[in-house]
């Protein structure tokens, strides 16, 4: 499949911006005992700054695999993923493992369905961890920032508690705060509300919307919940490893893209 490079343009911004995240002909094939399984069949997509993109698809459609290509958590079989987190293009799958780990720590925040907080550390310590690894903040500065992030997700009163002492929804708020620790421009979230009740899910979604509209973060979120589609600024639908030709622009809180077809697809 030919890769295409379609610059993004927003209604309220005439300037053409290079994509923040760009996937070019991304193919992922898993080798299994039963033979080769193509999980992604040539994905071409661009994601711009301050987009809130929902990747929607059924179980096994390839949506989490697609997310793993963006984070570099899994290797692609062929193709390229370019991320311009600080303006300069970085082809993340061409980096060495230690380089990509360092890059990821500075430029990406990741939120998981199962929260992935360390159970033996307090909430504030969980948030400080990525900062200490990154070396961007002093120990004193990282604690102050962690408390500030807990305030942002409205859970500062529990700072010194362990994850087991708060609810699932509160744990996910902490996980979001941790993902923001190094102030990354991009957040990726894999079914972040998948293990939460509907009221709690709504609160988490509102946190994401706030981050896009008020802080200009770019969020790519995987979900199997189609009812969320109108809430995203853009929805990518994936089926059997391929993006559906038309995707829906949301009319939610963020800016709407001019075009409504998936870039790179006829």
């Amino acid at each position, binding site marked *: 499949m030919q890769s295409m490079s379609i610059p993004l343009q927003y209604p309220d911004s005439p300037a053409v911006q290079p994509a923040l995240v760009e996937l070019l002909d991304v193919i992922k094939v898993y080798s299994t005992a039963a033979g080769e399984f193509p999980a992604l069949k040539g994905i071409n997509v661009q994601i711009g700054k301050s987009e809130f993109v929902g990747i929607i698809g059924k179980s096994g459609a390839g949506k989490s695999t697609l997310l793993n290509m963006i984070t570099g958590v*899994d290797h692609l079989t062929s193709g390229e993923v370019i991320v311009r987190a600080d303006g300069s293009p970085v082809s993340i799958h061409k980096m060495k493992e230690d380089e990509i780990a360092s890059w990821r720590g500075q430029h990406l925040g990741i939120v998981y369905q199962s929260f992935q907080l360390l*159970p033996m*550390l*307090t909430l504030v310590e969980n948030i*400080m961890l990525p900062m200490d690894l990154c070396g961007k903040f002093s120990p004193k500065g990282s604690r102050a920032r962690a408390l500030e992030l807990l305030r942002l997700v409205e859970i500062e009163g529990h700072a010194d508690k362990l994850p087991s002492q708060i609810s699932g929804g509160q744990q996910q708020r902490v996980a979001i705060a941790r993902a923001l620790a190094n102030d990354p421009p991009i957040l990726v979230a894999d079914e972040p509300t998948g293990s939460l009740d509907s009221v709690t899910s709504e609160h988490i979604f509102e946190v994401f919307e706030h981050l896009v509209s008020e802080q200009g973060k770019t969020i790519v979120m995987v979900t199997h919940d189609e009812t969320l589609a109108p809430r995203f600024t853009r929805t990518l639908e994936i089926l059997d490893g391929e993006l559906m030709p038309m995707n829906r622009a949301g009319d939610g809180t963020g800016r709407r893209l001019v075009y409504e077809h998936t870039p790179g697809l006829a």
Partner: protein
Amino acid sequence: MNTPRASRKPVVELAQHGMSSPEAMIDMHGIVKTFKSAAGEVTVLKGIDLTIYRGEFVSLVGKSGSGKSTLLNMITGIDHPTQGRMVIGGTDIYTSVTESQRSRWRGRNLGIVFQFFQLLPMLTLLENVMLSMDFAEMYDFEERPERAMALLKLVGLEAFANKLPALVSTGQQQLAAIARALACDPPLLVADEPTGNLDSKSANAIIDLFEELARAGKTVLMVTHDPSLTSRTTRNLTIADGWIVGDSRKENDDRSLPESEATGADSTSGANVPPAMEGIASHWDASQTPGERLPHNERGRL
């Protein structure tokens, strides 16, 4: 991520301690835990008295719902007892201690190994091991990558240091989790079903490592529901309905303890003071085989 530099000094170094009598690592009295639920109150632990000594490798077995994980959570401070006293390494961990102070204590004195590893998926194995050093303030920032790499070498994972957890096997993930648990050189390791999610070969590798650590002076307490693993430990505790109902030690274990200290309704343990174990100041040597890597030390400091 910085690449660990060549070692300027031994990364894993023993402190030298003398010891002439068995020393309690965990000493609990009257531990009660009651959970409140919509259906009423459920008392899961009904007044546990138990002493575990330094250098013991202890298995805690019991059926699902018997209270074994709850008891472990009382020891780690991840949950709090309703009543009772828990003294670990001489520290009463629930009296006049704030949650943040307890967290700091835990970081320095306790290594925890979970059934599902609890490695952070977005971090490499090396970074996961380094994390635990963050809050203990025992190692300089520059020293941490070097020490983390030495610990990965200890568990045979140095070649995978820069890989993410998803890219190694579950057995390797658990080995990395053990390396992380050892990050701050704690005298006590507690493990909740550490082999419960592993194939038998990987499980054996984990138990081999625990045996080595116990021989080196660490205290290891392992919750399991697998009776086949109890033959590998030096002491077996059985819990049922919130009580310790069995406590036995291996006949040939040289870490037997005074009768007055034996606990449990059906104790079959030997009751002799162990010979004083020599505190050996030794340096880490990566050229040694895995079985030779861990020096003996009764204080459990590597």
